């Protein structure tokens, strides 16, 4: 009932039901609220975090499954690409209600960390799992291109 893993670079042990989704462990046990609950079924991407550098949906990731692994949330973003993404999000004025944007930023950062110059098709592929009901999609796309250019510099 206790899981030890690396959370935003810190060794962390959380006491929780093994089946408890990582999302709720992060939010309610670790007290990090940037990661959001949207659907609970990996359908909307609001809960996206990085697990060993991969974008995953924390709402369907059991806490026990991350034992010994590295989890990064929006609060722990530190890479050059992540900073470029966050700066581009502000520059392009992406968010409206903002609720999905932590997840969008986590997906976009994971994309740029693997693919420094994504095409529009690459962006569709990486980002179509993240729903934004405010439909900020075009600005997200523009911001990813802006961030890609900035991160290369």
């Amino acid at each position, binding site marked *: 009932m206790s899981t030890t893993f690396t959370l935003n670079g810190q060794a962390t042990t959380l006491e929780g039901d093994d089946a408890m989704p990582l999302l709720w462990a992060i939010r*309610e046990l670790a007290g990090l609220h940037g990661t959001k609950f949207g659907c609970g079924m990996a359908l*909307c991407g609001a809960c996206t975090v990085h697990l060993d550098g991969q974008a995953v949906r924390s709402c369907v990731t059991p806490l026990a499954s991350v034992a010994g692994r590295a989890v990064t949330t929006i609060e722990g973003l530190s890479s050059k690409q992540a900073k470029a993404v966050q700066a581009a999000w502000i520059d392009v004025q992406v*968010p409206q209600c903002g*609720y999905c944007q932590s997840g969008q930023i986590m997906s976009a950062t994971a994309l740029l960390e693997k693919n420094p110059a994504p095409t529009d098709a690459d962006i569709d592929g990486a980002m179509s799992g993240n729903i934004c009901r*405010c439909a*900020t999609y075009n600005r997200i796309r523009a911001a990813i291109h802006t961030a890609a250019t900035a991160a290369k510099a």
Partner: protein
Amino acid sequence: MSIAIFDKSKTSRRDFLKASTGLSAIALTIGFSWTGPSRRALGAPAEASFMPNAFVRIGSDNSVTVISKHVELGQGAYTGIATVLAEELDADWAQVRVESAPADAKRYNNLAFGTMQGTGGSSAMSNSWVQLREAGAKARAMLCAAAAHEWHVPASEISVEKGVLTHAASNRRASFGALVKTAATLPMPEKVELKDPKSFKLIGTRPPRVDVPSKCDGTALFTIDVVQPGMLVALLMRPPRFGGQVKSFDDSAAAKVPGVVKVVQVSRGVAVIAKTFWSAKVGRDALKVEWDESKAEMRGSAQMMAQYRELAGKPAASARNDGNAAEALTKAARRVAAEYEFPYLAHAPMEPMDAVVKLTAESCDIWTGDQFQTIDQMNAAQVAGLKPPQVNIHTLLAGGSFGRRANAYSDFIVEAVSIAKAHGADGTPIKLQWTREDDIRGGLYRPMYFHKIEAGLDANGKLTAWRQVIVGQSILAGTPLAAMMKNGIDPTSVEGAATLSYDIPNISVDLATTESKVPVLWWRVVGSSHTTFAVESFIDEMAHAAGKDPYAFRRDMLAHSPRMKAVLDLAAEKAGWNSAPLQKGRGRGIAVTEAFNSYVAQVAEVTVDEKGEIRVDRVVCAVDCGTAINPDIIKAQMEGGIGFGASAALYGAISLKDGHVEQSNFNDYRVLRMNEMPKVEVYIVPSSEPPTGVGEPGVAPVGPAIANAVFAATGKRHYQFPFAKGGAA
């Protein structure tokens, strides 16, 4: 800049008051005592501050805090409101922050709603425009008077720029903060002169949104993020059919789930109260409830639509009657008729409904993304057994709404209060959290509608008669807002149709209002979410029947609606309407509407593949919303409105089978995703008219523009939302 909505745990009420004492004006801020500095570490509240009116507080640290009576739902209200006030104050935008107003209809009523505080109908900027300009100008006048007093110079010789007052002749300068003590002792001017729009420095520019930085690093505080000492989390099991009631329940398994504290019955169902969301969720999954469905809605939506269709052929209430449409139809050279079907739609904002309630015998504190403060205060008070002034609402950022959070039932707030009451009203904070399934199946949908339209053309292809019948549930009937209805007509059912702008000599629009246990609600752009589709699709069909170009056909009937004609012209021009036709399989469609006093025209370009799959490639949008306060936010609202409207037109539907909602989550309630978003171009008509709304109007024309483009591409028309389901006829 940032927002001063914040977690109470970081700054106690006592600390806040201690830090704020010293000026009588501060008494006005006690209502905000739960707020402290924002999560973005603004530092301690200013030691002294000056609050000349209910809308602004200026600190000795030069901070300018604008108090927003409107909730920030994503529409940019916080930024727009702050822009208007800061403009007249000549504040430095870098020092402006926004705090949400408490529930207080006396000071913070929406002037468009009369005596009620709330946000909706795309009214935030239009109703605040003069009020906030005056508030900013009066604060500026008082700061000038304070400087004049201290410097012994005439106030008229003092200039203000970016938060600094200057007396050029004596070479004296002071920031706002240095003058707040003196300003707070001076009388409020009765009248002030507002700026000539030519000298606007912020309005019409693109000051960055105040809420964006916190929405890019995870620190923005939504209701789901509220944590209070000893707080519990509740999930509610609601009846599987609308109108069902709890008959009995067995909580033996739920009560054994670790972390579950209590299981309580309330009027809307059975709540599991636990230490965490996850425990409450596991507990609710283990709960067994037997329902009394003797009064529940047992019909399916197909059955209901068949009844609507039948009603459309029977006499109904008149919403508009110009000339004699029935007679003119008999004389028409050509008659065309069509029927349109619209499903129930869920709003599905990204943040599922949630509210935190702290209830005692004397008070009720509510934290939520509140959109209807006055009504929520009344409804919460009634359930709690308190008086409305004993209900304190702390309005937080809302993770979307699209109309969902503004409802006369205060549904999720009433649920949360009733659960806190059933828990013992002992001051334990309780957070009610909806899941996505609760949201999709929870009702308060955009109503299902049926439209039947018949129109007649004369020998010259001119529209001479228009007869439209609308069938559907009323949003207002049976609610405290029913007073908005006139002669049995709910204006939200017919707006966009009864307000048809085209010059047609004979028009009749009738309404048959239906009843169901399915609770319904306005959904972004309200009536125009269906009426504009029916009207603009049918106008297109009539243009083709008359052998005319759909743009020219519309234009010829808008001689008396110059603003509507202007957006139509602008959209057509920018889209290259009269340029070479698109290649095979592609098409262009146009639509125009007026909604909430704004005018929007859109041209959609689509590609339809061999399987009939529709891809919306591009939407060109022209909007006239009066004075453009922040062109980038207007553009964002048009982009978002187009995505939202396209989502519903292409994919959105809530359907019932034997009273059960067939959808549950984003797997079967499909919404638009990144790869389906069209390219969008937005053009704003320059205007010096007062500002009107932008949150909703962009939604209305996109559905018909797409449908008309599909017709241009394929020769097939869509008469049912969503296109993906209904297929082309």
